[in-house]
């Protein structure tokens, strides 16, 4: 494949970056004008449209999308498979949600910078989803991080009483994010040292060879620990969670929503792609590590959330707890990796992807709601600010109630199916007893019990929000000047949460297909170029020389 084909594969991202540049530069020429959110939304529509046209008109793309003959198109550092296609479509949708959420509040600050950064973040996420190369993964993650710093700082805005704490939040996030990037890069360097290549497929080929070199084992383990630490910051998994409550509390509501959703998507996509799939032979360490992290993360997140009065801090701890739930699926994915029979019965990765979608909808919706309820100069800060919302804004109160019930995991809503999938995955380990997963079931049974207990704990603080909204007299009427876009995003999320809850089949099937595709892509040995065997052959040849 030539470089022009790589450019063709990256067309949606290129159009996103083009629109971001346009918004930046045009915004510098017309500083007084507003309405850049419409241009940003148009840019996302164009990117989504290009993706749809590629899928529909290109026969190879269509085949990949339907899971037929070529499972993946690999062109150098990027790969197009079902996993990346579906992730990109989802991410563009999430981007549209955030353009809607910020549509009004952005106009109070530097709107062009805010919208341009948002588009860059979305394109960065897409790059992570389609990366087949450690360097491209890192590039994508930085394309998410660096505009996020700008966004957090620009969002500090002209409201005097918030300016100082928002700048503090931006600085805190900047330093910790830089640290996590450095740790991640250090992990990548070990992976490169072991395999001699930055291509994920080559890394897989080298690590999956049975080798008696102790170095390969040792260094790939080290790499995994560092990569987990680096991505753990983005996932807000304990012990890398500590910045989240401070940063969320300090920043504005739409920014906090962005931080709660976008880095988590990046982390899960990168973890599925790099660690669970491309690093075979580490299942033992992998499931133990993620299992321990899942235990600690969800328990700590849920327990500390019980005491929070600030709504963003509450949601920060809630997002930490949900990171713990997502780690359950990854742990199951490790435990059954390399075991076709077991991975069919207990698809942990698929459950994690489904949970990620459900969580993103409910969380983005909640932040959309509290953004909508705020207004110029006065935003919703504490849970008490929502008191009596059922009288003053019954629709918003109902939507928030739907999100809270979904995050708790109550049956008619999407969150229930998320937890259901994770638990059936965890209990399905060992069900068909492939040799690898023998004797692991007590651990996963314990994990399931802890998860259920945690869900019960989390109900306490989610229901507290609902009780404040419905059973307390209103202290003051929220301004509700967050804009039509935020209200629309709120209703859209609520409708989707209910729809997925009532009819979860298609979404579950799609997440399962995504996880299957991620596994198969890396295992596919019949690419025309850069196939792992060719690579191994050249490597041995050069070793003999």
């Amino acid at each position, binding site marked *: 494949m*030539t*470089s*022009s084909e790589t450019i063709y594969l990256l067309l949606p991202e290129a159009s996103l970056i083009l629109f971001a*540049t346009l918004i*930046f*530069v045009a915004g*510098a*020429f017309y500083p007084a004008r507003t309405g850049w959110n419409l241009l940003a939304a148009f840019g996302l529509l164009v990117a989504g449209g290009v993706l749809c046209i590629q899928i529909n008109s290109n026969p190879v793309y269509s085949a990949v999308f339907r899971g037929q003959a070529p499972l993946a198109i690999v062109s150098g550092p990027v790969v197009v498979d079902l996993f990346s296609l579906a992730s990109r479509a989802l991410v563009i949708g999430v981007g549209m949600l955030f353009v809607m959420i910020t549509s009004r509040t952005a106009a109070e600050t530097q709107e062009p910078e805010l919208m341009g950064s948002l588009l860059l973040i979305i394109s960065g996420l897409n790059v992570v989803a389609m990366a087949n190369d450690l360097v491209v993964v890192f590039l994508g993650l930085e394309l998410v991080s660096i505009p996020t710093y700008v966004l957090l700082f620009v969002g500090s805005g002209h409201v005097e009483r918030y300016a100082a704490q928002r700048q503090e939040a931006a600085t805190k996030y900047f330093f910790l994010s830089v640290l996590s990037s450095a740790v991640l890069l250090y992990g990548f360097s070990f992976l490169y040292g072991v395999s001699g290549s930055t291509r994920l497929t080559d890394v897989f080929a080298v690590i999956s060879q049975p080798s008696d070199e102790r*170095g390969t084992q040792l260094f790939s383990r080290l790499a995994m620990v560092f990569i987990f630490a680096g991505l753990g910051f983005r996932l807000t998994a304990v012990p890398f969670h500590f910045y989240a409550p401070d940063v969320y509390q300090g920043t504005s509501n739409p920014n906090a929503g962005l931080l709660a959703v976008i880095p988590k998507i990046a982390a899960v996509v990168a973890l599925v792609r790099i660690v669970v799939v491309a690093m075979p032979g580490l299942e033992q360490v992998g499931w133990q590590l993620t299992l321990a992290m899942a235990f600690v993360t969800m328990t700590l997140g849920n327990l500390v959330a019980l005491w929070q009065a600030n709504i963003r801090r509450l949601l920060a701890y809630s997002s930490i707890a949900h990171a713990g739930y997502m780690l359950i699926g990854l742990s199951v994915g490790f435990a059954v990796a390399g075991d076709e029979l077991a991975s069919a019965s207990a698809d942990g990765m698929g459950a994690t992807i489904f949970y990620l979608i459900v969580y993103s909808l409910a969380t983005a919706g909640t932040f959309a709601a509290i953004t909508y309820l705020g207004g110029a100069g006065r935003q919703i800060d504490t849970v008490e600010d929502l008191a009596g919302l059922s009288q003053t804004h019954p629709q918003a109160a109902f939507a928030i109630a739907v999100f809270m019930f979904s995050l708790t995991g109550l049956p008619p809503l999407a969150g229930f199916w998320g937890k259901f999938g994770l638990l059936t995955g965890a209990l399905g380990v060992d069900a068909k007893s492939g040799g690898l997963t023998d004797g692991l079931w007590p651990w996963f049974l314990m994990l399931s019990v802890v998860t259920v207990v945690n869900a019960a704990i989390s109900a306490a603080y989610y229901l507290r929000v609902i009780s404040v909204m419905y059973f307390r007299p209103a202290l003051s009427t929220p301004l509700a000047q967050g804009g039509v876009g935020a209200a629309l995003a709120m209703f859209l999320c609520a409708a989707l949460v209910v729809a997925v809850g009532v009819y979860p089949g298609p979404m579950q099937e799609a997440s399962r297909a995504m996880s299957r595709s991620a596994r198969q892509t890396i295992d596919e040995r019949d690419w025309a170029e850069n196939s792992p065997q060719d690579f191994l052959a050249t490597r041995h040849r050069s070793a003999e020389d």
Partner: protein
Amino acid sequence: MQLFLPILMFVAASTVLAGGLLFLGGLIGPSRAGKVKEMPYESGMDPIHDTRRRFDVRFHLVAIAFLIFDVELLFLYPWAVASRNPQGIDAAVSAGLIGSRGLVFAEVIVFIALLALGFVYALRKGVFQWR
């Protein structure tokens, strides 16, 4: 492990050499300290004040604007060398690694255009005005 033995030896040798020379210099070299001798740059500018002082944050913007031109040079220089060298772009084209010379040229033009846009953005935002 065998592969890294030369590097280990190199590190050891350089450490011993550097440390030893410093030690020897201190041991047998003449040491006549004086006001001029102890200046940071013995033969350079006379220092006018302490180095640890605050300076204007606006210099930071200058440093960032410099990055545009620096990165430009970083990528244009290898391209310029490779386009004239018979083992550069021509060899890559005939080996089928890249499409054509025109494609590479177009990529460079796009790159310069992007940097120029960055420059225009900085200009409009008033980075080059000392406010």
